[in-house]
Each structure stands twice: as structure tokens, then as C-alpha cells.
């Protein structure tokens, strides 16, 4: 039972991550490979605050969100003038830099040893320590994030994001401040990823930089693509599939040493297959294909 709850918590966590990246890459069309960096910023901020200042969870969450949002600003601003594929490289580079910051600022972050014994989340008078309580917290926050994302994409602002994705020149010609919208969506996506980070740190109670690498970013974008770019339910579905299926592998009796590799290999294979055969994913409407002007 605890195992089932654990899996559900992971599904909820990755749904949040996928939704956060879906806003940036699926709705606004800005492919980014640094979502794990924001995830990490969120996790470490919450962990450090909880460990050192013993502040309540919601406060830590807020701090994480603000910090990650700022990081999103830092990435997005200079990247506005860089073209698509080089932009991806830039997010990649940013991801690696953040990883090394987490890994090397040992006095601050514990370096490769990470941070241990992160306290369980303290919400007002309740301390959540069981799986069920944590699942509820994660699902509640997840639902909140889903709602926020939904409001954003169905608003006129969401219309701008869609326009940026489909035809940026047109968006400009129709009087939309494209740069501002791009920066905003990046910041929001980063902030949402930080929520997942906060949850993760509080749940696993131990974090180290290896959870926040480029490979993790690639996993998150795989979930977005497979579930469907441009569809929020797709992100939930994608998280479900990509978390649950490898767990099933456990029952097939894979030797522990290669289980991790098989799981990652599964992600990679699924990514390739979907990109080739169904780039819009299961429920999405965007295949990362820039449509040319004219008929």
C-alpha cells in the first residue's frame, strides 16, 4: 500500500513538472532543457530553509517559487534574441551550470553528499509524515497548479502564447509584446517546477545534485511530448505512463544494476518513437513544427 502511494506521489510530482514545462514548451513553443534546474532550485531552497531556519513549509514553498521564478527570468531575458535550436543549447548550458553550482558550493548545498534529514512539511499545526498525508498535499498543490495553468492558457494571455508558438511575427504584427510574454511564461514555468522541487525535497527527505541533471530535464520534456504538447491533461497522462510502466518492470524481475538504465532507455526509446510517429503526443496539438507563412 505504501508502495502504491509512493508511485502516486511520484506521478503527481511529475505531473506538476510536466505541466510547468508544457506551458513553456508546449503552449508557447519554447523548447527548454533546463526545467530540472528550476526543480533543483526549488528543492534546495526548501531543504535549506527547513534545515537551517525551521520555517514552515508554505513559507519555504513561497521562497522556492520566488527564487526559481527569478532564475527563470535570468535564463529567459538574454535568450530572447537567440534562435530556436541555439536557444535549446543555451537552456542546456544553464542546466549544467546550475548542476555544477549545486554540486560545488559544498558549504552551501552539501555538494555531492547532498542534504539529509530534511524535515517533513509543517503546515500550520500539522506535520505531514505519512505517505497518505503527503499524497494529499501533492495532489492538492498539483490541482492548484493545474487550475492556474488552465486559467493562463484559456485567457487572452494564453492566446498570445499560442500566437507566439504558431507565428511569432504575426503576434508582433498584432501588437503583442512577445518578449514580455516569453519571459513571463518562463518565470511561471520555473516557479511551478520549484513547487515540485519543494515537495520532492520534503518527501524524500534527502536530495543531492544527481536528481537535477540534464537527463532529468530530458525526462521531463519527454513526458510533455509523449503526453501531448499543448494539453494539460496530456501532461498528467504522460507522467502516469512514464512513471508507472518502469515501476512495472520491477515486478518482471530486472536485476537492480540495470533497472535504472532500462528505465532511462525506455524513456529515450519512447521519446524517439513518439517524435517519429506521433510528435503531438497522446493528447496534444503541437508537434514542434513551425508552420511556414503562406498557404
Amino acid at each position: 500500500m505504501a508502495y502504491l502511494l509512493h508511485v502516486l506521489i511520484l506521478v503527481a510530482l511529475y505531473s506538476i513538472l510536466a505541466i510547468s514545462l508544457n506551458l513553456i514548451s508546449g503552449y508557447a513553443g519554447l523548447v527548454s532543457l533546463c526545467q530540472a534546474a528550476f526543480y533543483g532550485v526549488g528543492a534546495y531552497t526548501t531543504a535549506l530553509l527547513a534545515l537551517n531556519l525551521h520555517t514552515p513549509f508554505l513559507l519555504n514553498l513561497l521562497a522556492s517559487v520566488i527564487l526559481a521564478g527569478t532564475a527563470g527570468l535570468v535564463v529567459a531575458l538574454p535568450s530572447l534574441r537567440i534562435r530556436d535550436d541555439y536557444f535549446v543549447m543555451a537552456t542546456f548550458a544553464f542546466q549544467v551550470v546550475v548542476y555544477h553550482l549545486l554540486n560545488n558550493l559544498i558549504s552551501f548545498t552539501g555538494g555531492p553528499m547532498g542534504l539529509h534529514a530534511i524535515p517533513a512539511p509543517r503546515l500550520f499545526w500539522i506535520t505531514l509524515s505519512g505517505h497518505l498525508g503527503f499524497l494529499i498535499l501533492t495532489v492538492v498543490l498539483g490541482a492548484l497548479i493545474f487550475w492556474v495553468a488552465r486559467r493562463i492558457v484559456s485567457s487572452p494571455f494564453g492566446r498570445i502564447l499560442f500566437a507566439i508558438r504558431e507565428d511569432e511575427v504575426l503576434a508582433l504584427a498584432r501588437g503583442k509584446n512577445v518578449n514580455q510574454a516569453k519571459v513571463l511564461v518562463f518565470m511561471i514555468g520555473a516557479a511551478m517546477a520549484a513547487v515540485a522541487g519543494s515537495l520532492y525535497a520534503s518527501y524524500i527527505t534527502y536530495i543531492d545534485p544527481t536528481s537535477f541533471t540534464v537527463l532529468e530535464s530530458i525526462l521531463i520534456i519527454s513526458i510533455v511530448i509523449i503526453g501531448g504538447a499543448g494539453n494539460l491533461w496530456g501532461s498528467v497522462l504522460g507522467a502516469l505512463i512514464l512513471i508507472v510502466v518502469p515501476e512495472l518492470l520491477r515486478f518482471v524481475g530486472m536485476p537492480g544494476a540495470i533497472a535504472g538504465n532500462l528505465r532511462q532507455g525506455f524513456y529515450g526509446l519512447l521519446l524517439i518513437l513518439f517524435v517519429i510517429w506521433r510528435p503531438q503526443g497522446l493528447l496534444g496539438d503541437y508537434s514542434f513544427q513551425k508552420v511556414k507563412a503562406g498557404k
Partner: protein
Amino acid sequence: MQQLVANGVLAAAIYVMVATGFALIYATSRFLHFAHAVVFTAGAYFALFLATRIGLPLAFSVLLALVLSAVLGCLAELVVYRPLRRRGSSPLVLLLSALGIYIVLQNGISMLFGDDLKIIPGLDSGPSFTIGLARVTPVQIVTIATGALCVVATAIVLKTTRVGKMMRAVASDSELAEISGVRAGSVILASFAVGSVLAGLAGVLVALDTAMTPDMGLNVFLMAAAAMILGGVESIPGIALGALLVGLTQHFGVWLLGSQWQDAIAFTILLIALAVRPQGLLGKRAVRATA
């Protein structure tokens, strides 16, 4: 100090090989073939496999490993990229597929060989030389020489040979090239073959010098990409310059800040380069987002 320069130049030699191969592929096929990172790794592991499990003599293993690297690159092109390109997929889509290929292959290597450090045995490298105050092993000297040779050879091939001219034609305008009778598909395949050989070669040389792990390709590739972007995709001397810059700055940064920062330094350089001058130091093609 001189050791730093030597280390920096050594790193630059590796980067320039990987970067030149990558640039060839990027120039003709117009997308970031991320899986190049694992071709580098695969080259080393091919050589390891051939030398240890099959027991071929080292030189032969290396040569065969280069061929296999070329095959690997070409397979990626034929099986994944070409069908996508035929369908009119954007460079972004191709990049995403390349990411998938990287993940599958890197994990494949991990599963087959394990994640532990390995070395390719059978190389009695002899004593290290001392040039000035710097210590370099024979393998390292070979690596630096090979790097330089690759740069010069690639530049010559591109300028003078027929294949090279076709590559340049496809790189500057593939439609025009097609009209002039150049089969872009074959040229792209050739770029993959040559580029992958260069990556595999670099991988083998690194494995002969230091240890190898399945994920070693990632960092080297990103560094090489930094070198390429810094130097400008279209310019071989630019790439060489970029590689030197990345390699030297990395190692000087190491001296100043400590070796754990060596990757972060390189990437910060890349980020600054992308933000300030995306077309590189010597490059011509603009990579700014168009209005």
C-alpha cells in the same frame, strides 16, 4: 602554468575534433545532432570491446572502432533523421529525436559495460615527456597532433576536394545545390560518416589517455558545442580558435577556482557567447531570432 597550457591545449585538441565533426553535420543537415555525444563514447567502447573481448591488436581495434563509429552515425541519420526530414520536420523535432537517441545509446552502453571506470589496456605508453615545465604523455602528444591534423585535413578537404565542395554547397544552400546536381542526401550521409569518425577518434584517444565512463560524452560534447558556437559554425579556423579558448579558459579557471568548476566555467562562456555574439567570433551566419 605551463602545465595548465599543456592541459588546456590537450583539452582543446579533443574538443576541436568533436566540434569539427559536429559542425560538418550541423552545416549540412541543419540541426543539432545531440547524439554526437554518444558517438564519442561509443568509439571508445567499441575499441575497448574489440581489444579486450575479441582480443584484436590495439591498432586494429582502434581502426575498426572508427569504422563502427561512422556506421553508428550513419545509422542515426538513415533510421531516424532522414525519415523525419523527408516528412518536413523542423530542426527542433530532429533535435528532440537526437536527445532520445542519446539516452537510448548511453544507457545501452551502461548496460553492456557497466558504469565503472574502464581503461583500454595494451598501450605501453612509455615515459612521459617533459616540455619546459609541463608533463605530457606520448598519448597526449598524439592527441594534440591528431587534433591539429584533423583541423588542417578537414579544412583542406572542404576547400579542395569534390566531396568537400559539395558539402560546402549543401551547407550554404541545399536547394541550390540539389539543382546543381548535388545529392544533398548523400552529402549529409558523408558528413555523418566523417563527423562520427572524428568523434569516435576523439573518444578513443581520451580513453587511451585517461579512464572512460558511459557518460563521458555528454560533457565533452557540450564543450565542443561551445567551441563550435564560439568559433562560428561556418569557420574551421573559428572552431579551432573556439576550442582553444574553451580548453585554455577551462584549465585556467581550474587553476583559479578549482577543478570542480571546470565544466561550469566552460558553460558560462557558452552562455555569454550565445547572448552576446551568437554567430561566434569568426562566423558569418546570423543566428539571431528573426523579426
